[in-house]
């Protein structure tokens, strides 16, 4: 199905079904690329599990898990080329890691060290956005600037189903469409905004169908189907790079865990619902398919798992180190040059330390 077909916004693009069978009428995905993607899925799942464990051990204050959404996380990162930008939310640690940022640097924010633990300019990954939908306009700005500078950068802008209700979501879509900005808006519709179900966000036929109102293509894709996601996001990225403007892609997926560890999801949804979605796991269908075509066996599976375990060990080690917070940092970065008042306040704080030491 082509992105530009109108019904793409309501029908759901699929490549592999829950059992890992090729959906009728679709092209066979490239096994090598899918295997590479599967390795990332295994890593992503492991990262979600490791971060959750670190919260339980008190090493991280909080973790918004993307368990069940790993296919979305991996596909949006791998659809991009070297010079492209990713604009993630708080739930997209796995996507950021899949872009090549050290997971320790991604998670250190949740340890409370600083607001952002990686260099956004070096990695072309914006700081994880907490105020919902606000980052989407920045994404449009980065894309527009790239166009004005004659660069062929594409920007992948992420948000959740809940965030599509914010005014900034609409403004970003409209700006991008009007300026034909090279942006892919990728909405992970995981059915909940904390406790609030999708039905309270929108009664549109789909979130992707909102694209019509802005004059851009919208596509709804099975968010637990790595093959389908890679195809659709790949096409959207190429479209943007060719100068054809933005695309709105909605992934039909599910937040398998609570909003964060601080949330109690049993207060607002049934375990039956969760179990049903757990049965549509994004990892199992890929492994089933790859095994079916002979591209995956126990040895490769074991190698991927061992790799992921090494990554998890590095994460534990990296986040196990307590870096003494440097109070100078409170004042150092607020302005390019600290104001006179900040210099005085820094000195006053130093004075307190001197007294304590004496």
């Amino acid at each position, binding site marked *: 199905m082509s992105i530009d077909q109108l019904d793409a916004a309501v029908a759901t693009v699929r490549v592999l079904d829950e059992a890992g069978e090729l959906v009728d009428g679709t092209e066979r995905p490239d096994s090598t690329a899918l295997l590479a993607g599967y390795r990332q899925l295994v890593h992503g799942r492991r990262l979600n599990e490791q971060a959750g464990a670190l919260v339980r051990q008190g090493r991280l*204050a*909080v973790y918004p898990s993307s368990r069940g959404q790993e296919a979305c996380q991996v596909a949006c990162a791998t659809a991009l080329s070297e010079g492209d930008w990713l604009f993630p939310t708080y739930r997209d640690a796995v996507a950021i890691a899949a872009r090549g940022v050290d997971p320790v640097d991604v998670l250190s*924010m*949740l*340890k*409370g*060290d*600083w*607001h952002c633990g990686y260099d956004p300019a070096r990695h072309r990954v914006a700081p994880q956005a*907490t*105020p*919902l939908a606000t980052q989407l306009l920045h994404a449009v700005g980065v894309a527009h600037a790239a166009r004005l500078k004659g660069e062929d950068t594409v920007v992948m802008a992420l948000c959740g189903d*809940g*965030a599509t*209700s*914010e*005014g*900034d979501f609409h403004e970003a879509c409209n700006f991008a469409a009007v300026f034909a900005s090279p942006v892919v808006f990728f909405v992970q519709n995981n059915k909940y*905004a*904390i*406790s*609030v179900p999708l039905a*309270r*966000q*929108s009664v549109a036929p789909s979130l992707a169908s909102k694209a019509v109102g802005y004059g851009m293509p919208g596509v709804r894709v099975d968010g637990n189907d790595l093959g389908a996601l890679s195809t659709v996001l790949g096409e959207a990225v190429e479209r943007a790079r060719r100068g054809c403007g933005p695309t709105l892609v909605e992934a039909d997926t599910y937040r398998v865990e609570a909003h964060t560890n*601080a*949330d109690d999801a049993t*207060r*607002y949804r049934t375990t039956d619902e969760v179990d049903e979605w757990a049965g549509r796991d994004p990892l199992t269908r890929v492994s089933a398919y790859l095994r079916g075509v002979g591209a995956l066996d126990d040895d490769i599976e074991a190698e991927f798992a061992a790799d992921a375990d090494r990554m998890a060990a590095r994460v534990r080690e990296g986040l196990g180190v307590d870096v003494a*917070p440097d*109070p100078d*940092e*409170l*004042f150092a970065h*607020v302005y390019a040059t600290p*104001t006179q*008042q*900040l210099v005085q*306040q820094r000195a006053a*704080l130093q004075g*307190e330390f001197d007294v304590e030491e004496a």
Partner: protein
Amino acid sequence: MTAKMTMAQAINSALRDAMTADDSVVVFGEDVGPLGGVFRVTEGLTSDFGEDRCFDTPLAESGIVGMAAGMAMNGMRPVVEMQFDAFAYPAFEQVVSHVAKFGNRTRGTLRLPMVIRIPYAGGIGGVEHHCDSSEAYYAHTAGLTVVAPANNTDAYALLRAAIESPDPVVYLEPKRHYFSNDEVDLAAADSTIGRAAVARKGRDATLIAYGPSVPVALAAAEEAATEGRDLGVVDLRSIVPFDDDTVCEQVKHTGRAVVVAEAPGFASVASEVAARVTEHCFHYLEAPVRRVTGFDIPYPAPKLEHFHLPDTARILDAVDELQWEEQL
């Protein structure tokens, strides 16, 4: 008639009692329905009063506040929740351009009796955007009433008063105290907006605070007492309207004042208090009024917040600098 309850429960009781007393009181926002709010402040309201009286909205703060304004125009008394201080900013346009100004714009024919509840300030080790002290933005906007309870009894009383007020009220909840237990006397609570309370009488100097800084000021006064200094504490309760009388009476009595607030001090509520006290009590003052506030920085990451927040040591240092030697 006293009962032991947390601040979250006191606010919940105020909502319940107001909803029972007046059918036009409706509660809405993000996750306030079946979940009962991320801090459980609205727990049980949907099940007890029905979906029309307490409901979740689409996720949009401008939408929530704007719709509340319209409902207030049409005879209802909406009480809306902003999930966290910094997440109220998308509603800023509605708050500043309309909610605050409708009464004045229409020569008083259209008043907006609505309450915007905002869990605010820090001390919870929250990630960025979850710990802002945003009171100055609201206090600076004429037409808004701004209250900040410091204890559970006031949390109840001020919310009841806010809901009954003919004007829009920004009701700031010191989120770090949501789960602190306290004896609450609902019947005896002072539900007058615009009146400060003398939280502790003192002879030597007056600490002036509001919201989450009141307990810190009280602890500082406690500590000072062991060192032979008798500090009084005024709890503003209401930032707008401001109770010049109570504040000045206490300061005139002691001749010394320190204002304590967690927000950055520059162009802040603390600065307004210091300026007012200086203007009104100049001839009674033994020393310039001091401010103990947060630094002029964005709210720090969790591991650094203890450097930023005013603590008893910083308050007592400021008290020490109130030119005591000249008394000798």
